[in-house]
């Protein structure tokens, strides 16, 4: 441990009654769109019948206080860090100390359209494996809200993953006093975590990813020619992405064209985000209504949406898509590669082919490779037990079992 230079203040989520009343009032006044015939499979976007059910539940049955209590069940803190431009960022995080005398510090980073809630069900199993009859390692679990998300502060201007990674490193070292730590993430969190491994390789002992965001400079001499399998995979991903990238196009170019609607309308916020849960979650797509509700119970998905709503962060969260590409931090420089041992676990998304390992190895020091048979893009929410076991196994297999 090093000296803790920056204090962290205990934090408890406490949304006011008037904010809850305001949400319910808006939901009651919602004006819904109509829908093209034949949208049972969400082909035109978020399904209307699903939205009607979801919004009625949000308005009439959803109990924010119960969810708030559940979110507050682990210790939370906020710490304020000043960046190189002199801007202060207040970072919210869960901090659950692990069992035993030498747990592995692990920072877990969510993405969009998620929140720190994504990891709520795996905090305890990772911090206290013995309670679940599991072998170690145990982890000190740190789950921050991304900058501009949830209970972290909104930056004056969007900041990207490379800069967030520097804040994370300082959170782990200067606020929490760790010298070396591990990291886990998917989605935008995997950008941050990959940058963390690149920028602070001496401090990061190992990383576990459920998405591989870094792209190699293919022209560099160290890169073998693209294989047939890789070329097929790239082409398939690009074709899929043409159908799916509308949200990204908007958020990365004109987030302020969208912001006014999704900041004003809880239905608008839910409609914008639910599409991604349907598409990327491991939902049963034969009966889409049932599949969606089984995979993401209303209480779970509405807690996610409510965090965006109550914190007023949907716009600042969306603008990460503007900051990320602007920073250019996903493309590796020629010869650059993540050297930190990396475990990759791919959770299936129905229509997508498996990532070729050769592709991953261009950018990462892959130490463990797993293709999971169930659980989607939000694996920690969708399959918490499977996910926690996999993370634990991964770090144990990579020999990372001790904090010091």
């Amino acid at each position, binding site marked *: 441990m090093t000296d803790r230079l920056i204090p962290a203040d205990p934090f408890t989520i406490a949304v006011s009654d008037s904010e809850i009343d305001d949400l319910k009032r808006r939901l009651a006044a919602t004006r819904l*769109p109509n829908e093209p015939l034949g949208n049972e499979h969400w082909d*035109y*976007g978020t399904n209307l019948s699903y939205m009607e059910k979801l919004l009625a539940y949000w308005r009439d049955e959803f109990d924010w206080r119960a969810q708030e209590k559940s979110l507050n069940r682990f210790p939370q803190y906020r710490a304020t860090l000043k960046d190189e431009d002199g801007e202060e960022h207040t970072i919210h995080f869960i901090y659950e100390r692990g069992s035993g005398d030498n747990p592995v510090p692990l920072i877990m980073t969510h993405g969009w359209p998620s929140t720190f809630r994504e990891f709520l069900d795996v905090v305890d199993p990772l911090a206290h494996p013995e309670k679940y009859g599991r072998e170690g390692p145990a982890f000190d679990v740190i789950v921050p809200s991304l900058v501009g998300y949830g209970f972290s502060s909104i930056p004056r201007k969007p900041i990207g993953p490379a800069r967030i990674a520097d804040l994370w490193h300082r959170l782990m070292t200067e606020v929490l006093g760790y010298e070396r730590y591990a990291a886990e993430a998917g989605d935008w969190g995997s950008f941050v975590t990959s940058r963390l491994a690149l920028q602070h390789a001496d401090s990061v002992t190992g990383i576990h990813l459920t998405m591989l965001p870094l792209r190699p400079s293919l022209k560099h001499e160290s890169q073998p020619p693209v294989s047939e399998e890789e070329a097929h995979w790239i082409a398939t991903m690009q074709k899929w992405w043409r159908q799916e990238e509308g949200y990204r196009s908007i958020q990365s170019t004109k987030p302020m064209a*969208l912001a006014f609607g999704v900041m004003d309308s809880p239905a*608008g*916020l839910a409609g914008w985000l639910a599409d991604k849960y349907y598409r990327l979650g491991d939902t049963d797509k034969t009966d889409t209504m049932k599949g969606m509700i089984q995979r993401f119970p209303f209480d779970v998905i509405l807690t996610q949406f409510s965090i965006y709503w109550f914190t007023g962060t949907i716009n600042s969260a969306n603008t990460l898509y503007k900051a990320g590409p602007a920073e250019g931090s996903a493309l590796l420089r020629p010869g650059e590669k993540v050297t930190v041992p990396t475990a990759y676990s791919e959770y299936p998304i129905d229509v997508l082919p498996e990532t070729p390992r050769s592709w991953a190895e261009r950018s990462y020091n892959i130490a463990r490779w797993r293709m999971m048979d169930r659980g989607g893009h939000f694996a920690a929410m969708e399959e918490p037990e499977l996910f926690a076991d996999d993370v634990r196994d991964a770090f144990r297999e990579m020999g990372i079992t001790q904090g010091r």
Partner: protein
Amino acid sequence: MTATTPTPFTIAVPQGKLDAILAKVRAYEWHDMPEIAPGGNRWAYGADMDYMKELCAYWVEKFDWRAAEKKLNAFPQFHAELDGLKIHFIHVKGSGTKPENLILTHGWPGSVFEFYDVIDRLAHPEKFGGNVEDGVNVVIPSLPGYAFSGKPKTPLGPKATAALWDRLMREVLGYDTYIAQGGDWGSVVSGWLAYNHSPAKGGGCKAVHLNMWGVRPSVLPETDAEKQWAAGAAMVVELESAYLRLQMTKPQTLSYGMMDSPVGAAAWIIEKFHGWSDRRGADGHEHIENAFTKDQLLTNLMIYLVTDTFGTATWFYRGMMEEGGTNMAPDTKVEVPTGIANFPKEFLTFPPRSMVEKGYNIIRWSDFEKGGHFAALETGEVFANDVLAFVSQVKGGAA
């Protein structure tokens, strides 16, 4: 295949509808936007918060929908049903003894309101110092899913709409031949009218006047100028086409926020009026109100809101994709006489004439000093005069 006779229509929005919209605008809770350096482009991230505040203040305090409604009702409007789909249109008979027939088609996020200031100029040129014999019969429909037209059950695109328009003109209104005009989606619909519904193909569209590059020949850029244009157009697509990508693939995902939040819909739409117009002022500064008044912006916007058509209007993009895009078959072109009106601040610029000629039989090409994507609304007199001059050329047998 059924078509009904037109029934007169007058816009009369229930007060409760207006009250509900304004209540939400009044209650809007303003929020943060990313910091913009002093002197920087305040629209860099989309809609400018300061302008939206100013516009919304005007909206609740000064904007008079009833006055706008009166203006919209100043011309005869009708509904006709084509295969069960209700089509709203303005129909004004022209002066003179033998007026030509002209169908003008708007686009997104516009409406028939774009043409209100040119209707008299086109139908009754003698009132503006023109020749009475130049007057045209003016037909201005609302696109399917837009404004006071009906909402289709599934997305319709411009090709299908062109087929409806040809029947509207010939079967419903009894105009055997006509000239088509349009910008934005209107240019695509008009392009398909000229391509698929010319007299040679059994339709009635005998000439077309376009102020945007819509239906395109299947050719690649060849000359240096064409290649340069293509590179510039690709850049515009990269920066400006997100709305299109989204509306083409997942209109429904966007619609929840935009249907529920009037200010949300306003930002989505006003951002386009800002980005696509000629905002240059006499003082050298750019401002959206050099192109439009607040009353104009809000009248057009309110047409979407009072009719609950934000969602169905965006379906048109998906409809275009489903019907296979906007390219002509290889080695074919529009054979009917074509006029091109090239306004300088159009965001989807025309390629060089050499390339346009591969797709169209151009008899008139006009380059203008001022005006943008919403030419009829921005610079009505210039727009109307060019259309009338084109009609005269067609009438005079120029080809």
